[in-house]
């Protein structure tokens, strides 16, 4: 069978189950686009390539599939870098296809040539420059396999224009076999038996779960494990939704803006079971003081995550799902008599911490941003898929919207990309057309990828954008307030557009609330109407509200500044 590179690409993408591509055309990918429109694959035309990658990221998380992007060479490719780096930090499976100048021109500083494989080497799980049309199908299959297996991540494929438009005799590439890539899935049983022994013995255990639970679809196994072993649970930002936010064992999020009790528990526990986490500095604070009294178990599929930042008593390399399933089986046989009795004091202590300091705010004359998020939670019954921008808005979303299920909180956790939320919401909405998708945004961040409103309008997506408009780059202002004597260097954004008019200019709906009374009205109106277009809801909130608790960077996580 004679096929061109572009045709082989389409055929292989279909075989990999791709039904949606986020992209933006250009000279180096015209041949590919020419074939793409002949298939039944849906192409979402974004307005900036960064938007394509974040949208694919949101899509991947909401759909539980690999997200796919297609962009042109040079500037198209460089525009994807932030999105790729974010997906890499958050372990999101993506395949990013970039066009490249024809092979004969590579290295000649050709028009729109850039060494995107070189540029993205440190922020992709792997990347390829396709050397021949014959190898194209195999490369694509490998890329998908690498992106979704092991610790997932983005893979980039750079396809020279002449590889795409050359016709060859197509041969089936067969199954992917890679001698140099074999992630460990099944954990060592003996290590897990050690974990069970520690669980039996522990008086003050805590589970610290992360994004690995969500990626490996192990929320149910985690919940069962926690209940069976009678262990309270905290999660990282990336782990929100991995454990039900309404469960009595739930401690809230850990870390810099974690709850008082989650941070206290971690510091005073005698056993910390870390699952699917990588001990980010925003979680640990000062590492020497982190869980200093505890034996630490660390279960993760990526061996480099283990003992990178924190010393560990029992390392377990493997898939979280496999580990938890085995652990649950072992617990069925274990000696858990009077386990509840053993933990009684510990849970009493946690209750005291909870009463001592809860997440709170005082609603006065001006709208408090936390109030908006809390109302949003109430009105949506906690059922919406929430994406966020970055800054205070992100932290208030994490603290005041409670997540009971996985894949409902989509945020740029590791890289912290302002401008992530709107395109991610677009991707999530495309993956879940019947669900309510809300981007909780800041006035600064939303301007970073606001052009994607046009994409949402064109695709008739009912994405809701809730702007917590404080007129500041609020999170940076908060640091300046606390640690730089209130010198607000360049964080006041007093020249923002009128977001209502801006929404309307895009063909979307714009609503605004300036008083406390209006919050509920605007939310109700915005959430329950407009099924065929996006809505921006602009909430003019208290300008100088801060996120608490807060652990200053590098301090032990027990040193929390409270409200």
């Amino acid at each position, binding site marked *: 069978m004679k096929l061109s590179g572009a045709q082989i690409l389409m055929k292989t993408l279909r075989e990999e189950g791709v039904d949606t591509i986020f992209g933006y055309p250009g000279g180096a990918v015209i041949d590919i686009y020419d074939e793409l429109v002949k298939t039944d694959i849906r192409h979402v035309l974004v307005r900036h390539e960064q938007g394509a990658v974040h949208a694919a990221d949101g899509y991947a998380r909401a759909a539980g599939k690999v997200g796919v992007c297609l962009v042109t060479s040079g500037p198209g490719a460089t525009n994807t870098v932030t999105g790729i780096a974010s997906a890499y930090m958050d372990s999101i499976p993506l395949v990013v296809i970039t066009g490249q100048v024809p092979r004969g021109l590579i290295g000649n500083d050709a028009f729109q040539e850039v060494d995107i494989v*070189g540029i993205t080497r440190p922020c992709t799980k792997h990347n390829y*420059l396709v050397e021949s049309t014959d190898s194209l199908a195999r490369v694509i299959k490998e890329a998908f396999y690498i992106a979704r297996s092991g610790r997932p991540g983005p893979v980039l494929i750079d396809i020279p224009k002449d590889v795409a438009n050359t016709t060859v005799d197509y041969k089936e590439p067969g199954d992917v076999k*890679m001698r*140099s*890539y074999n992630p460990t899935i099944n954990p060592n049983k003996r290590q897990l038996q050690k974990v069970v022994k520690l669980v039996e013995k522990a008086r003050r255990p805590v589970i610290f779960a992360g994004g690995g639970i969500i990626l490996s679809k192990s929320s149910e196994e985690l919940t069962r494990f926690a209940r069976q072993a009678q262990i309270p649970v905290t999660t990282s930002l990336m782990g929100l939704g991995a454990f039900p936010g309404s469960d009595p064992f739930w401690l809230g999020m850990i870390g810099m803006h974690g709850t008082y009790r989650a941070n206290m528990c971690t510091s005073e526990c005698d056993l910390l079971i870390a699952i699917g986490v990588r001990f980010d500095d925003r979680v640990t604070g000062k590492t020497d003081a982190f869980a200093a009294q505890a034996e630490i178990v660390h279960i993760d599929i990526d061996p480099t995550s283990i003992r990178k930042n924190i010393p560990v008593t029992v390392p377990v390399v493997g898939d979280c799902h496999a580990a938890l399933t085995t652990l649950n089986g072992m617990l069925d046989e274990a000696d858990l008599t009077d386990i509840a009795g053993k933990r009684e004091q510990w849970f009493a202590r946690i209750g005291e911490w909870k009463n001592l300091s809860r997440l709170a705010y005082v609603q006065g004359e001006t709208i408090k941003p936390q109030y908006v998020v809390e109302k949003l939670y109430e009105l949506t019954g906690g059922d919406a898929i929430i994406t966020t921008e970055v800054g205070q808005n992100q932290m208030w979303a994490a603290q005041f919207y409670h997540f009971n299920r996985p894949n409902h909180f989509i945020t740029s956790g590791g890289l912290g990309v302002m401008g992530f939320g709107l395109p991610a919401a677009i991707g999530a909405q495309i993956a879940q057309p019947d669900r309510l998708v809300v981007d909780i945004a800041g006035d600064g961040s939303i301007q970073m990828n606001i052009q994607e409103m046009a994409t949402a309008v064109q695709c008739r997506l009912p994405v809701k954008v809730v702007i917590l408009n404080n007129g500041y780059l609020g999170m940076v202002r908060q640091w300046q307030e606390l640690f730089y004597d209130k010198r607000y260097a360049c964080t006041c954004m007093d020249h923002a557009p009128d977001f209502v008019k801006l929404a309307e200019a895009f063909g979307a709906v714009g609503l605004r609330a300036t008083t406390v009374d209006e919050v509920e009205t605007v939310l109700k109106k915005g959430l329950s109407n407009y099924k065929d277009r996006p809505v921006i809801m602009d909430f003019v909130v208290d300008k100088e509200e801060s996120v608490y608790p807060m652990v200053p960077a590098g301090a032990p996580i027990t040193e929390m500044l409270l409200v």
Partner: protein
Amino acid sequence: MAEEKHVLSILVDNKPGVLSRIAGLFSGRGYNIDSLCVAETMEEGVSRITLVTQANLPLVEQIKKQLNKLINVIKVFDMTETEYVQRELAMIKVTAKPENRAEILRIVDIFRCKVVDVGAEHYTIEVTGDEGKLAAIRSLLRPMGIKEIARTGMIALFRDVK
């Protein structure tokens, strides 16, 4: 914790860009490279990179794991963990004044090296050995005036067949 020298022998797919993946990993994460050697192995499509680094124990563990995480890395051996033989080749261009020539040739003889080039003012000496031998000959030749040195970097193999 004390830093130690580790000789890592890394089998990799012989694909374009592999070396820059490894070099990039080291520079991006702030690990150091004392020396690095690359060449093909007996097996087609597989190359061996011998890399010498200084690191304390937890760090060298992390380095090995990070190397293994690279898709094109097949296997990483830490030679320092067991018995191994190491060799490096150096070419040393040393000033050879008439009054020093005999002394230089004596050193060459004792160290079992070779003079591979002779000029009006210099000898170029080829020496193969482990680090200690190379350091020793350098220090003996230094008083005569070393003009240039080119070194291959270390290569190593386990003593036992692995």
